[in-house]
């Protein structure tokens, strides 16, 4: 391998251009900016001493090297942390000072998620980070982890389940009731800003309409869409209704009466981030059992 000044300049330019992403991967793997910086030093050395003329895709090469080295670094960091004095926490990063870390790629960065990711295996964590924070396709993650696509899908779904389930532990019954009241108040006015405040990201509205007109048949996903849907129905849905509350499995549901008949039953589910789903039952066969309890 011949190394000219031009070669080295190219190597520096390529490394610099992907550095923010490599740091993003390393920090999310190690929860430490200092350890991520050290790791990037090693990646740089590896890059410098590699025969770069045979590297087809430098970005992929560097992301692969960073991820693999981060998996090893995480394993040894975990051993070291066993002798840490007192509770161990991630090293916080000032995301206003690092626009790439903060704004462009904010996923899997907040403290709650970093804490939950500590419980994942190193491989699970790598797959989760590459998928959730950087949107890598599964086949590419499989190459990076020296694994197969089905195995990577498994890793990601296991990790996702772990991270979201703990994060989305349902709120207590009284908090659910409180949110339900706030939801009704906001939905009646159809005021977008009031509704938005109540929703968790990815909020979903499910309807069981049994073919009834004016009921969305497919789930509505996302704050903007769910808000728009509620604003659209607010002009007619709440007019002249009589609401009765009923407790099912410790969560409160609302039976909506209109003109002496039951129009529907609805409820909300919530977790730490706010309301994450709204359920509407318009199907008369299914609401009979619930509405009879709301006398």
């Amino acid at each position, binding site marked *: 391998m011949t190394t000219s000044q031009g070669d080295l300049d190219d190597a520096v330019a390529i490394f610099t251009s992907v550095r923010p992403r490599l740091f993003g991967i390393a920090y999310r793997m190690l929860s*430490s*900016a*200092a350890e991520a910086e050290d790791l990037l030093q090693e990646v740089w050395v590896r890059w410098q001493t590699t025969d770069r003329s045979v590297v087809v895709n430098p970005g992929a090469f560097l992301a692969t090297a960073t991820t693999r080295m981060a998996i090893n670094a995480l394993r040894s960091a975990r051993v070291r942390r066993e002798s*840490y*004095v*007192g*509770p*161990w*926490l*991630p*090293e*916080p*990063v*000032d*995301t*206003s*000072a690092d626009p790439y*870390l*903060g704004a462009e790629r*904010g996923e899997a*960065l*907040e*403290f*709650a998620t*970093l*804490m939950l990711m500590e419980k994942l295996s190193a491989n699970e964590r790598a797959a989760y980070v590459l998928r959730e924070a950087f949107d890598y396709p599964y086949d590419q993650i499989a190459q990076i982890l020296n694994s197969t696509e089905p195995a990577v899908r498994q890793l990601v779904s296991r990790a996702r389940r772990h991270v979201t389930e703990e994060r989305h532990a349902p*709120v207590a019954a009284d*908090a659910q009731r*409180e*949110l339900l009241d706030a939801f009704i108040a906001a939905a009646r006015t159809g005021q977008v800003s009031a509704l938005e*405040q*109540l929703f968790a990201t990815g909020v979903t509205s499910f309807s069981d309409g049994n073919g009834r007109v004016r009921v969305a048949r497919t789930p509505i996903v996302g704050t903007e869409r769910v808000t728009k849907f509620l604003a659209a129905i607010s002009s007619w849905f709440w007019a002249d209704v009589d609401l009765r509350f009923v407790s099912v499995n410790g969560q409160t549901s609302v039976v909506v009466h209109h003109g002496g008949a039951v129009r529907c039953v609805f409820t909300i589910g*919530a*977790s*730490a*981030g*706010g309301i994450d789903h709204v359920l509407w039952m318009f199907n008369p066969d299914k609401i009979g059992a619930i509405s009879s309890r709301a006398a």
Partner: protein
Amino acid sequence: MPHDDLVRRFAEACRVGDTEGLRAILDPDASAVCDSGGTLPALGPIRGADDVARLAMALLGGRPGTELTTEAVNGRAGLALRRTGQALAVTALDTSSAGVIALWIIVNPEKLRSWQP
């Protein structure tokens, strides 16, 4: 209440030394963990609004010459405590619609390097 508003109210209660006000915006089941890397007597995780409010006040509350500001910590509103510019503590918070549910307080100087001027 949205995350950012809760964090601002949290900071204000700390600044004026209002432990009761602090307790009021904590979830009853709130928890706090402090990483001092051995520079403070080791504290296990603290649970419950009363104890968390007392700990937060002891660590972040209105000490003369210090300044508590709302800053972007790992992509969300968090808190930085400084004295003459030097960062003494950085705190990340997790909140729900019911209040603050988790506090992660980092006072280990090793982990505050990127926060120093």
